[in-house]
């Protein structure tokens, strides 16, 4: 059991897909301007990575190695399209919020990375745990970045004005605080991720490469 729980816990910190393996940066930049989008993206990746890892793991003995990357891509794309279609038919509102993420999920390198590195060589149950673990690791970073970018950039969290109203000058704005619009631009996501990496490595020296 210890080995299995390691599959979930490892990617959360010491083998985090974003801060250690530096994968999935593109989507971390694109959609973390607000917390809600980060959460939605996290849930979507959790689903696709969990199920996708199981599917690839079940197919691992019959996939021809020459075209395995294409096969992996097809599996992700199919899963995402199925989810998108089903949502469009039964939860239309939700599907509209999610449609932006579809493209980003298909091209998310974490997903391809886990298929290639783990699911192709391990059984379905372990692959499932690995998928969930990595998706959670991805989610943590996304949510931290989304939290700071929305808070400092727009002064809101999940759309709620937590720092007061910037136009009517209430709350923090009354004493001269201003939102930092720069936080909303993609480069700041990279800088926030950089700060997280810095904090993480200064606490755990074994993560520092020579």
């Amino acid at each position, binding site marked *: 059991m210890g080995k299995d729980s390691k599959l979930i816990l490892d990617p959360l910190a010491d083998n985090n897909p974003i801060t250690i393996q530096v994968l999935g940066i593109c989507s971390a930049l694109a959609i973390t301007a607000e917390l809600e989008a980060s959460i939605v993206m996290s849930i979507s990746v959790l689903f696709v990575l969990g199920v996708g890892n199981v599917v690839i793991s079940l197919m691992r003995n019959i996939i021809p*190695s*020459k075209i395995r990357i294409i096969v992996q891509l097809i599996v992700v794309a199919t899963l995402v399209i199925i989810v998108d279609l089903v949502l469009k038919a039964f939860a239309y509102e939700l599907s509209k919020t999610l449609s932006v993420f579809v493209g980003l999920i298909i091209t998310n390198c974490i997903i391809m990375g886990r298929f290639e590195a783990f699911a192709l060589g391990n059984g379905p149950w372990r692959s499932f745990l690995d998928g969930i673990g990595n998706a959670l690791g991805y989610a943590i970073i996304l949510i931290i970045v989304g939290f700071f970018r929305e808070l400092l950039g727009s002064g809101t969290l999940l759309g709620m004005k937590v720092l007061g109203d910037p136009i009517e000058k209430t709350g923090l704005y009354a004493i001269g605080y201003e939102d930092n619009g720069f936080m909303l631009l993609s480069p700041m996501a990279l800088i926030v991720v950089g700060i997280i990496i810095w904090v993480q490595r200064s606490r755990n020296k074994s993560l520092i490469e020579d």
Partner: protein
Amino acid sequence: MEKRTDKNSYTVLFAVGMVLIVGALLAYLASALKPLISENERLEKQQNILYAMGINNNDEGSATFVSTDEAPKLFAKYIKKQLVIENGEVKENAEAYLIDVKKEQARAKEGKARRLPLFVGEKDGKKYYIAPIRGKGLWDAIWGYVAMDENMVVQGVYFDHKGETPGLGANIKQRYFMDDFYGEHLLTEAGVFKGITISKTNSDPTNEDKNDFEIDAIAGATITGDGVTAMIKKDLRLYVPYFQNLKKQG
């Protein structure tokens, strides 16, 4: 010894098999769910049009449509006339709201006559003229509905988009952006069409000046904002003759 899965023949067979299975699965799903999806899209159009004329379930903050159950009933109640303007001729058409603006724009590009849908709504004795608009944002299509009074003063808008960046361009469908349009003029006092510009240099962030033909832009969403400007100017201009006629007829 070569593994069975490394053979070229196996690879080709596998690829063909996989494509067939996945293709069939997706095609089946897509066609099986099609009626449900297009029904959802139909209701959404009704909700959008009603939203633009101020019939919605907005509470503090977020933009909320009337429920899908109520939409057809309210649509029939408040939308008095659905018009199609073609070559200056105005005809009634009960299915005008289903006209695909994208297709009509493509027809106009080919030099054919473009059908312009216009919905005449009435609420509390006041008339609303609602026109659909469509354009390009940063990543993909953006579109919307603009409700105007007989002087082309904006009475409400609804914007939507296919794939603008969440938190930036996607915020064109947020209340704080859409609500700014209320009361904004499209025509100068002389009656010349000027449209509305999404402006980064607007010195009126609370949008008190309704005669400046400008709306405060969203930070970080310049291209999406420019797209909104362009679709307002391009598409609403086409409706000017209708409103001029309306004036003449008194």
